């Protein structure tokens, strides 16, 4: 319900922003277009109707074989209750952005939600999405001279790194739950 | 993964080495026996100094022969010997402790005998002889007046006593004794620290090496460290890197030469003994600085800079607090400072006035910082600097730093005891046992145990060492700026106030007046209460062990 309200407010504020909404599933989410993402993010953060002050997670999904990578921003609106009362969660929503796989970039929201700084670095490191305006745009988990972005579906496993030989690529199997 | 082949080869190599060692030592022993026989034969033929020299060399060669043959036997029968030793390790240890105590006493007795000799030996004209006496004179005295039977026993004893007349020989013996004592104290301190740490942390500490509560752990660690590889850093300053452990260790060792263990048991009774000790304690800072700088390691540098800061700053309140007993007693000589406290518990300098009590506490806190013990152990803060200034040292050099630390701990404990807490006197007034001081050996031993003796000094110093260990394992570490704040803004003003207060006390309060006696009584009662409280806590904790720790722990964890 709350996600529908947010969708309505966003549609009113930024026409053409909300491309799709899936608010009845397990993970209510709104798909936005990446062009006005910065303004939309600022709106979501600061506008009293939204008030999403807590960025839980930025996930990146590789939609291979489609030529898109999807970024999922999980947001939560925390607000204090009375003294001695636990804080309340007014709303949760997931914002999805579709970015082209090759050379896709998205404005960074690290100045709006500082938590995004390291999440965006991880998305760049493991998925290869660039974030414009990120204060410290470099790899975070892999070594600085790593080639490729490991979480992509078409990632080539390296045969060696710095002279150290690597093993063969893993295979999957269909297991049984006992 | 070693194949069965290489396993066998290693075992065979070990066996081979053992056999070779046995053969080698047996051969060495045989050679020494031969040399000894030749020299002994020569000694009986030649007389005079050459004969004496030959005799001494023969004795030396005989000793070495015996040692080599013993080593050969030990290696040959190492397995049954190991099993036997494991069983009798603890009795051997106790016998060794008692024997050490007695062997420390023997030289003092011998010196007394030798000093008395001059009075006993008289010339034909009846006048007492001047020292040094000749060997022949002592020999004739022994054969004549002392009733020693055989001639060559008398010769042997006379030679020994003749040697003991010379100050150089006495100094050599004393210095050897000091070095042995400091090593023993350091080894004991390391073992004890680990046991105390274990018991405070609800565990046992070393238990295996040597059998009974791991008493030989320090010995094993020392032997291990001796044979470790001497790692040298490529970027380090070679001369300074090699020098630093010695600059840290030698002052800690040297200050034992001024430390009196009893009224007559002191290597050099300096007029300014206290200043000498302070100076040597300050020299230790240099070793730490050199170590940190020459390691070419930023963490070591940080550690040594912190240490320089801390130790030098705490010297000031330390010095001020030391001036207080000096003012009360009026001398810098350590034996004088000790002898003042001969009249029992209430005559101890710490309980003379509230100012001396405060000075004792300030002194103790200052020594905690000076010895780099927690809560002031920033220089070796394990969790920030790995090991601080001695990170890059390994093997024997690191052992020297460690030895220096424990030697210093004991030395400052001894200093606190001598200055404040009764030196080598027991809480009973020495006047009560004055009659026993000149009696036979067993009376003098009893006097040493009950009234005054080196054992009391060592025991009280060990108590202060234990206090330092107790604090280390209980308190967290103080940050550097807080350390400096505590020194300059808390301890230093306090020390100055105590010094000023004591000055006025000395000026205006007469020693036997009512106020002085009252203050003495109150402070003594306070001190006694603290002691009794500690004992009460120990007894209470022992009796209520199960309830305090929790039944689960006592059932499931050993030694908890």
């Amino acid at each position: 319900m709350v996600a529908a309200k947010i969708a309505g407010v966003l549609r009113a504020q930024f026409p053409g922003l909300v491309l799709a909404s899936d608010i009845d599933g397990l993970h209510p989410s709104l798909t936005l277009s990446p062009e006005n993402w910065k303004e939309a993010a600022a709106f979501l953060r600061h506008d009293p109707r939204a008030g999403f002050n807590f960025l839980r997670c930025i996930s990146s999904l590789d939609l291979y074989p489609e030529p898109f990578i999807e970024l999922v921003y999980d947001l939560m609106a925390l607000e204090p209750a009375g003294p001695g009362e636990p804080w309340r969660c007014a709303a949760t929503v997931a914002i999805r952005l579709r970015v082209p796989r090759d050379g896709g970039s998205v404005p960074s929201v690290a100045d709006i939600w500082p938590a995004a700084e390291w999440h965006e670095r991880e998305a760049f490191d493991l998925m290869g999405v660039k974030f414009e305006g990120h204060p410290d745009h470099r790899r975070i988990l892999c070594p600085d001279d790593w080639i490729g972005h490991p979480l992509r579906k078409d990632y080539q496993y390296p045969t060696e790194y710095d002279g150290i030989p690597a093993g063969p690529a893993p295979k999957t199997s269909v297991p049984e739950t006992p | 993964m070693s194949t069965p082949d290489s396993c066998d080869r290693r075992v065979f190599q070990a066996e081979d080495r053992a056999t070779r060692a046995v053969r080698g030592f047996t051969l060495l022993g045989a050679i020494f026996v031969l040399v000894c026989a030749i020299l002994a034969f020569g000694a009986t033929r030649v007389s005079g100094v050459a004969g004496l020299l030959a005799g001494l060399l023969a004795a030396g060669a005989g000793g070495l022969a015996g040692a080599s043959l013993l080593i050969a036997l030990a290696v040959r029968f190492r397995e049954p010997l190991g099993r036997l030793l494991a069983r009798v390790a603890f009795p051997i240890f106790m016998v060794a402790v008692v024997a050490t105590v007695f062997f420390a006493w023997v030289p003092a007795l011998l010196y007394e005998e030798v000093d008395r000799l001059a009075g006993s030996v008289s010339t034909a004209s009846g006048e007492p002889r001047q020292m040094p006496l000749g060997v022949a004179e002592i020999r004739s005295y022994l054969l004549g007046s002392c009733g020693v039977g055989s001639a060559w026993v008398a010769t042997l004893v006379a030679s020994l006593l003749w040697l003991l007349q010379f100050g150089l020989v006495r100094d050599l013996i004393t210095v050897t004794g000091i070095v042995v004592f400091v090593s023993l104290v350091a080894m004991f301190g390391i073992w004890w620290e680990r046991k105390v740490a274990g018991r405070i942390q609800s565990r046992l500490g070393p238990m295996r090496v040597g059998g009974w509560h791991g008493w030989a752990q320090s010995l094993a660690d020392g032997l291990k460290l001796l044979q470790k590889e001497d790692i040298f850093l490529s970027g380090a300053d070679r001369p300074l890197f090699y020098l630093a452990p010695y600059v840290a260790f030698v002052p800690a060792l040297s200050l034992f030469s001024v430390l009196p263990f009893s009224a007559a048991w002191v290597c050099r009774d300096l007029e300014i003994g206290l200043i000498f000790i302070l100076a040597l304690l300050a020299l230790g800072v240099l070793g730490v600085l050199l170590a940190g700088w020459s390691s070419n390691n930023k963490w070591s540098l940080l550690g040594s800079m912190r240490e320089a800061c801390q130790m030098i700053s705490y010297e000031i309140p330390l010095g001020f607090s030391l001036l207080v007993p000096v003012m009360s007693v009026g001398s810098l000589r350590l034996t004088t400072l000790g002898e003042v406290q001969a009249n029992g518990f209430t005559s101890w300098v710490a309980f003379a006035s509230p100012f001396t009590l405060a000075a004792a506490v300030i002194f103790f806190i200052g020594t905690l910082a000076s010895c780099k013990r927690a809560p002031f152990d920033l220089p070796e803060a394990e969790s920030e600097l790995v090991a601080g200034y001695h990170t890059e040292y390994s093997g024997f050099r690191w052992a020297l730093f460690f030895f220096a630390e424990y030697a210093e701990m004991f030395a400052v404990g001894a200093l606190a005891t001598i200055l404040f807490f009764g030196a080598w006197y027991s809480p009973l007034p020495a006047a009560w046992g004055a009659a026993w001081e000149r009696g036979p050996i067993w009376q003098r031993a009893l006097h040493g145990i009950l009234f005054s003796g080196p054992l009391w000094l060592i025991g009280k110093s060990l108590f202060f060492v234990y206090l330092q260990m107790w604090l280390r394992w209980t308190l967290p570490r103080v940050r550097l700026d807080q350390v400096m704040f505590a020194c300059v803004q808390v301890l230093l003003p306090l020390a100055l106030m105590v010094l000023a207060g004591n000055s006025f006390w000395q000026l205006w309060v007469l020693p036997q007046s009512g106020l002085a006696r009252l203050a003495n009584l109150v402070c003594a009662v306070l001190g006694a209460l603290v002691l009794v409280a500690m004992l009460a806590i120990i007894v209470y904790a022992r009796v209520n062990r199960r309830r305090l720790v929790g039944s689960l722990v006592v059932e499931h964890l050993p030694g908890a």
Partner: protein
Amino acid sequence: MQERVYHSYPDLLLDAEGEDLADLRTEEMLINMGPQHPSTHGVLRLVLRTDGELVLEAVPHIGYLHRCAEKIGENLAPYQFIPITDRLDYLAAMNNNYAFSMAVEQLCGIEVPERGRYVRVIMSELNRIASHLVSFGSYALDLGAFTPFLYGFREREYILDLFESACGARLTYSYITIGGPALDLPEGFLENLQQFLDYFEPKIDEYNQLLSYNHIFVRRTAGVGVISPEDAIAWGLTGPCLRGSGVRWDLRKCMPYDIYDRFEFEIPVGVPGGSDGIPRAVVVGDSWCRYFVRIAEMKQSARILRQCLEQIPDGPVRAKVPRVLKLPSKEVYFEAENPRGQLGFLVVGDGSPIPRRVKIRGPSFCNLSIASQICRNVLVADIAAIIGSIDVVMGEVDR
């Protein structure tokens, strides 16, 4: 909030305009509090730019324990992925298993029977106590108090013995799986748990006497590394770091999952000093508050455990899960309250037994991101105090 000026490591000696300061500031040192260090709680590398003892800037470098668990998750079925979740926050393995199992159960619509739910909560809260004991012990060790570490581990031995009797392992359990716990509780487990709780609860007061109110400890931690509530929320902190800043937010109470709404317990938060026995120097959001929240949480976990002991029913522990569990083409994002914060799993299914994507939101990863902000203009000794109070486990940071 302070002005944020970032430098990447090779350019660390540039000022805000990019001017090279290396010629002027010759007394500054670049110290590497390297991956191997006694107080960085794992393989964390902090590059400190210091002026003597004063740290001007601290840049964390992570990734030394990166095993790309998320890529592994795209190649293993959920049941096979449970041991990987063990090794994320290896000190709270039960909680990790719990979070992942609940995410997959939500995705597939699996209902776990009542007894299984209680067993899961018991294991989860016991592991919370064990994890907080490690954090308490190693924090004391960082600050030079050697003894509380041993006391914490002595208590932890009992918890690990309980876990060993239940599933055979002491650190990485893989006990809570899809559909409930793998095995039922052994005989005598609940009695041993009761005995442990009776033994443990007085110990918390002992820890407070030994460490929490110790003057030296308070002076080392009070007022050090203060994080305001707004900063804490903005930087995505969760768990005791968030609660230490005064934000009374705990997923178990505010967005209850599983059966946590049946238990009565409180959420401890950081309170200002001077009231209620709290030392005067304490500021809301400093290291002492974060540390004390953990101590108080241990008490609350013991409370929950006692209620579990009363309420646990008999019956089966596992649900009927098909032999080959096909994940529907949906996605779920589930967060659970771990000892270190909120552990989140985004599981995307595509109709096959193997998920399309498993994204792990590690709480320590988010908590550590604030380190570069608060480790400014403090002494080197404070770095250990701050990092220890954030309580990171690198398995979660790097995954």
